[in-house]
């Protein structure tokens, strides 16, 4: 019986190169970063919660900043483009809820700057994330003071608020550590896919 026998066509077709096996769907989804829309809604919620429920929570004059932690996480996780634009949006939210324009530039640069680190570090590294949060808090505070001094003529904000800014860095770093630990825990249990 020849191999060209039409009756054996199925056997002949099996000889060809086999198609590459599709990767499991679940593995493909793990690497998908969150959508910008979701992050934007998260930023809005963070701003609202920060301006309401957490407004009374302070430590030595320093308030928790969910927005900075979210912007830094986004920058590390998604890169400069998403990080930068989310920083801009977060700054706009912070200013719309009562910042008078002193936050937007600092948040934008914080998001962009942490986005630059994304290509060099793992986003779920504790030291990198916490250092980035501390740096972003400091940068945001510095630019806020500069804006206050230049735009509103309010001198002496650095002298007056630097102590509070240091405590804000510590508070935000603690929040970042807790948030990252929760994300890691959620990923290990399959509850979060980021």
């Amino acid at each position, binding site marked *: 019986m020849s191999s060209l026998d039409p009756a054996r066509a199925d056997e002949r077709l099996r000889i060809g190169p086999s198609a590459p096996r599709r990767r499991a769907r679940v593995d493909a989804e793990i690497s998908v970063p969150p959508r910008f829309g979701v992050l934007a809604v998260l930023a809005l919620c963070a701003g*609202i919660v920060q301006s309401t429920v957490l407004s009374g929570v302070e430590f030595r004059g320093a308030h928790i900043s969910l927005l900075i932690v979210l912007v830094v996480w986004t920058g590390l996780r998604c890169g400069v*483009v998403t990080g*930068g*634009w989310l920083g*801009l949006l977060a*700054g706009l*939210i912070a*200013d719309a809820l009562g910042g*008078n*324009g002193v936050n937007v530039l600092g948040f934008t640069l914080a998001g962009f700057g942490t986005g630059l680190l994304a290509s060099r570090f793992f986003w779920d590294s504790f030291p990198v994330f916490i250092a980035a949060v501390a740096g972003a808090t400091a940068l945001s505070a510095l630019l806020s003071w500069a804006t206050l001094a230049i735009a509103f003529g309010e001198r002496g904000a650095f002298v007056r608020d630097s102590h509070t800014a240091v405590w804000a860095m510590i508070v935000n770093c603690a929040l970042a550590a807790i948030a990252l630990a929760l994300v890691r825990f959620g990923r290990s249990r399959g509850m979060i896919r980021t």
Partner: protein
Amino acid sequence: MVAIPSFWDERKLLVFLALIIVASVVMLIEIDAARRGSQSLADQFAGTVVGPIQGALMVTGRAIANEAYVTTHARVIAEQDAALAAKARALAAADERLKAHGVENRELLRMLAVRAAVPGRTIEADVVGYAPEAARRELEIDRGSSQGIALNDVVLNGDGLIGHVVDVGPSSAHVLLIVDPTSAVPAYLQHTHAWGIVTGTWLHARMKYIGQDVHLTFGDVVVTGLGEIYPAGIPIGTVSQIDRKDNALYQVAVLQPAVNFEALDRVLVLVSR
């Protein structure tokens, strides 16, 4: 030609520039609005859309915080509650004392006015008891002959006539009230100057021997007339009922005493000697 490092590839640079420009524009708009004292578009959006959500969250947050505080500080709150309740009781007691002092003060002021108005020396005395049985309407005061009180001394307070002393001991005396049926006080109507005799009816007093031609009206004030015991002009009471019979020689007026005999605690005694 300056080479751009690979770290700053063209796309990142474009994003950076775009972000800086947009952020600067947004910042300038916000600052400009703040300087003008108005709201930017973002502020208005936040106020319109986010404002109600913030309000609801604040209310909810406060409620949760209150509940959490109450739950975690239940013991402290209970202690504070007990302390506040004790404080409230103490304040209420102090308030009652102050009210009593106020009443006493007003009574003393009235008595001072009476003391200035009546002739002669007066002695202040506290009422220490009433006659235990209803045989006579009497009261006992804590001043007696050792303080200068004598038989038939007139007793009054800021409201008017109470009675006169009917027996005296060294440190106490008994006073026959004008509402006792055996009491007889010469008196006249302040309005018409018509004379009569005031005697007691246990609860009230009656003014007897008022001439038929005297025009009596309710509320007429009756005061003491100058007599053997009583000085003139001390209020006794007001006319509350009129008993006039055509075939009688005199009219009778029932008086509402000026003094509340059930609540006497301090009196003035007009010393006759």
